[in-house]
């Protein structure tokens, strides 16, 4: 498969693993957080940890948009789906995510709610056109990558004069979440969580560029290497981070230069800026309230805001007390340290955020890495 196989080549991987082996210094700690679920998935799916020396450890960050959405927002989506005359359009992997009381969109669908799985926000606009007597609500989630398509869908609906299309906006922002992790007392003051560098997002960075990470590198004195989602990208980024640590540098480097520029995608950013504004605070599953970490639809476009049209109540819901997701997302614990992991909490019956999507740390560990605990 062209443009894919080249980035999964086993011989090149062995060459990179050897280079990493030569570069690491005994006695030095290299604990790197990959922010994105896409990286977490690649690390587990290709068994990248097996190729790394013992003192290089990967900490799996909160960059899975499905995982970090709090139960209250899922309850909001369930509330919308159950309104008479509403068709709720959602991405596939949102369907299984449990809200409070372990209710999910899949269960609501089985009970008669009209919920459609779509592949693109444009499909939701299509549904609105095809069903003029129904209200189509698009359950929009994701980081900066999926926000421009949502903006575009609203524009399309506006151009077509569709009055039956709204968006339940749950778009969140990467830099705010990274800040929240770095600002947590364990990381900033106590030093109990060793975080020696970041693998920066791939797809998100194609939109926002590499520039937003320069602040972190400088302020928190941690190197950042932006990397693609292919396994060779990840290995190369780890090598680049190790070199920065060894040389005492903390710069933003761009391994994913085939897709990411310093300034990102100006057109997409303008589209988003035109339609969305920052929420003062937004709850993240596992991280709690994070200031200025999410977007809402601007008042000028409020005709397309499902929260305005349907007066969605503010659902509150608490995560399970024994769930260790928050600690796992900040690198304090590994999935295997959680009492619920693999027993009460499995991909089939997820309790915590890290188990709900294939990209969450616990789900990836459960699905692809369980043999490590046994061996």
């Amino acid at each position: 498969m062209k443009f894919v196989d080249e980035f999964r080549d086993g011989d090149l991987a062995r060459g990179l693993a050897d280079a990493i082996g030569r570069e690491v210094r005994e006695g030095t700690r290299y604990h790197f957080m990959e922010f994105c679920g896409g990286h977490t998935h690649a690390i587990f799916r290709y068994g990248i940890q097996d190729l790394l020396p013992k003192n290089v450890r990967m900490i799996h960050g909160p960059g899975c948009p499905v995982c970090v959405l709090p139960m209250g927002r899922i309850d909001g989506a369930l509330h919308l789906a159950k309104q008479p005359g509403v068709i709720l359009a959602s991405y596939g992997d949102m369907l299984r995510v449990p809200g409070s009381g372990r209710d999910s969109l899949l269960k609501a669908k089985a009970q008669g709610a009209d919920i459609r799985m779509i592949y693109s926000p444009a499909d939701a606009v299509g549904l609105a056109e095809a069903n003029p007597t129904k209200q189509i609500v698009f359950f929009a989630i994701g980081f900066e990558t999926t926000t421009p398509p949502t903006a575009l869908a609203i524009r399309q609906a506006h151009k077509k004069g569709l009055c039956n299309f709204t968006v339940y906006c749950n778009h969140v922002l990467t830099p705010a979440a990274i800040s929240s992790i770095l600002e947590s007392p364990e990381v900033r003051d106590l030093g109990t969580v060793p975080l020696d560098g970041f693998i920066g997002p791939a797809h998100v960075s194609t939109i926002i560029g590499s520039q937003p990470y320069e602040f972190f590198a400088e302020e928190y004195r941690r190197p950042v290497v932006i990397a693609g989602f292919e396994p060779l990208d990840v290995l190369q980024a780890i090598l680049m981070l190790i070199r920065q640590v060894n040389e005492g540098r903390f710069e933003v480097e761009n391994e994913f230069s085939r897709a990411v520029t310093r300034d990102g995608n100006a057109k997409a950013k303008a589209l988003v800026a035109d339609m969305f504004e920052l929420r003062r605070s937004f709850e993240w599953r596992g991280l709690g309230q994070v200031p200025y970490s999410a977007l809402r639809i601007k008042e000028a476009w409020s005709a397309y805001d499902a929260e305005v049209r349907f007066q969605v109540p503010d659902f509150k819901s608490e995560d399970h007390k024994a769930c260790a997701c928050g600690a796992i997302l900040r690198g304090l614990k590994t999935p295997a340290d959680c009492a619920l992991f693999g027993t009460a909490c499995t991909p089939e019956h997820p309790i915590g955020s890290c188990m709900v999507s294939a990209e969450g740390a616990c789900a990836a560990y459960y699905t692809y890495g369980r043999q490590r605990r046994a061996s």
Partner: protein
Amino acid sequence: MKLDLENGVVEMAHGGGGRAMARLVEDIFVRSFDNPLLSQRNDQACFDLSAGRVAMTTDSYVIQPLFFPGGDIGSLAVHGTVNDLAMAGARPLYLSAGFILEEGLPLSDLVRIVASMARAAAEAGVAIVTGDTKVVEKGKGDGVFINTTGIGLVPSGVAPSGEKARPGDAILISGTLGDHGVAVMSCRENLSFEVDLLSDSQSLGGLVGAMVEAVPDIHVLRDPTRGGLAATLNEIARQSGVGMELQETAIPIRGPVRAACEFLGLDPLNVANEGKLIAICAEGDANHLLSIMRAHPAGRDAAIIGQVVEDADCFVTLKTSFGGTRMVDWLMGEQLPRIC
């Protein structure tokens, strides 16, 4: 009254037990399935079986769309049940066919489906000897549902079973994975993409016949249908109380399947197959069995993909082409595409 096979549709009367139903059975089913037992028009088929072990299985088919590249619900209803018999090492002999038709189904579609079943049965060397037809009101079915039950004879000395995998055994697959699942997905209503691929739906009776003749002591035979290779190997590992180690580079997967799974965020090891089998045999028999499989048209792309190992946790693991190791787990719930 004659049936209008070109423009007519299934009506409630076709399931009513009266003349309309008799006409439907006569003109479509009996004519297509044409065999002496069915032609007796009794409520059951009576036949002699030679002494020995008999295998019996049943399966219901509810696939959407009814017609897909490389097959349809009719051929699938024959292949699926024939293959379930074959996985016992049995030679499939007879099938029953129960139809639940939805009012409004074009008769031309029904004719196409039944003709396809007849063709598949002839190719597999089985006779459809008894059947049943019901009609449900419009909106209460999905065009057509088919149930088939099959009976076959197991040659003496042949007894593959899921609990017989032993550490050291070789794991073989009869061909490329994921063709059926991806071919069907490519024509689902909300996900049409163009892919140069046909479903692998086919009878495995002939292939199994050749395999058990050459190596009667095949320990396990199973077809990786829903849930794909991953689910099937996990089932066997648990039944046998063993682990399995696979080599990713040895698993045959076609380019279009890999590409489709790549952009949908699916794992080909979880995708359904309808014409492939997994065989587990003693290591010493593996190369002989592989050459027999490759000599048969249904096993041309067969490969040895891994081995059975001792493992109290019954884990199925995969040595990745990248050089690492990962688990191959069951699919959780329904297969859903990832957002990014």
